[in-house]
């Protein structure tokens, strides 16, 4: 029987790799946290990772914009948009098809894409977590920026259905789920560059307590006012949290003004493995990440 062996979440802004060494006293502990999470993933020898992320009008346009979409490609190409990591990452189409079937059986009519190139919401975390990329990836897109968005409650239900589906699979697969996005940031708006540390720390505190009910009382208007349109991406965190079904440990949080985003990295308790040590390490200047693997995506 397959099992959810790891659930985690991280921010995904491109500056994480494009301006990696900014404010070393803050970026250093963040890079340490990604290294710790990557070591966790490597130690678990995962068979695949479901990366729950969004898109910024690179893969999906208004001619056809899904609410949820699974990627079923054998190889997923990164866009490499605006200097973000490109390259390729191996898919897990058989697992993706099983998840598609299982989610449909559980009331989630998730769309599918047999190509599904990936933007930085996938490629940045996979660059920082190479063990996840090496395990093979099933991308799960969530609409986080084109209203109407799926409700926070619907995302929690999806996370639970995803965990239930994984538990129902045959074989001995060890599967991870990693949500990417947020925390507070404003995209394409005059408040670009602002961060609401209080909002971010409150969110993390609630997740550490496993208190999804409080988060579910938040409206999108509240989230946007308090933490920006980029914080609507906390849907991906909720999916990972609900899949795990437990509390989280925050590996690191910093309001990274040079990156224009409140950066969080957390691992959720799944009841199957020990987690690492939160808020690790001393500050050090990290080097910029590279493409997920192979050459940068074919972009001009």
């Amino acid at each position: 029987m397959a099992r959810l062996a790891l659930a985690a979440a991280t921010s995904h802004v491109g500056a994480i790799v494009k301006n990696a060494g900014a404010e070393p006293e803050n970026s250093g502990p963040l890079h340490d946290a990604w290294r710790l999470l990557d070591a966790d993933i490597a130690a678990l020898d995962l068979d695949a990772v479901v990366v729950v992320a969004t898109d910024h009008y690179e893969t999906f346009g208004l001619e056809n914009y899904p609410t949820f979409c699974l990627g079923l490609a054998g190889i997923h190409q990164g866009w490499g948009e605006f200097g973000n990591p490109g390259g390729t990452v191996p898919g897990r189409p058989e697992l993706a098809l099983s998840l598609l079937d299982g989610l449909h059986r559980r009331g989630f009519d998730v769309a599918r894409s047999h190509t599904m190139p990936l933007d930085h919401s996938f490629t940045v975390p996979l660059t920082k977590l190479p063990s996840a990329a090496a395990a093979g990836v099933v991308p799960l897109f969530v609409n986080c920026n084109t209203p109407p968005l799926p409700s926070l409650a619907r995302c929690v239900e999806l996370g639970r259905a995803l965990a239930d589906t994984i538990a129902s699979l045959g074989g001995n697969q060890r599967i991870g789920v990693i949500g990417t996005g947020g925390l507070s940031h404003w995209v394409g708006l005059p408040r670009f560059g602002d961060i609401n540390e209080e909002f971010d720390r409150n969110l993390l505190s609630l997740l550490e307590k496993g208190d999804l009910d409080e988060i579910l009382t938040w409206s999108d208007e509240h989230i946007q006012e308090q933490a920006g349109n980029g914080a609507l991406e906390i849907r991906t965190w909720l999916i990972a949290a609900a899949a795990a079904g437990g509390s989280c440990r925050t590996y690191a949080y910093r309001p990274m003004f040079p990156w224009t985003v409140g950066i969080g990295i957390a691992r959720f308790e799944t009841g199957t493995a020990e987690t690492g040590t939160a808020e690790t390490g001393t500050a050090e200047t990290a080097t910029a990440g590279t493409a997920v693997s192979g050459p940068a995506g074919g972009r001009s």
Partner: protein
Amino acid sequence: MSIVGLNHLARDLEHAAGLRERFDGAPDEVLAAYTLTADECDAVRQRDAAWLLAAGMNPVALRNLMVSLGVAHDAMYPDGLLDEAAPRRGGA
């Protein structure tokens, strides 16, 4: 607002080889290929993010459009947001 046309333009300027250069040389010729109003075309030519935002363009797509047109993310709103009376442009 021509949401679909503006989103297509943003994606094409980012993805279509040579389109940005064609736009720089002959913006009207490029814009004619998209279903946009005269005001929208004018706002794109002027890189007027405040007007496009007030008119209803999604801020993520707008960011892509502006960056593709050479406007840095942190330089999109040099004059802040428009007044409540906006959007108005050229009487169209």
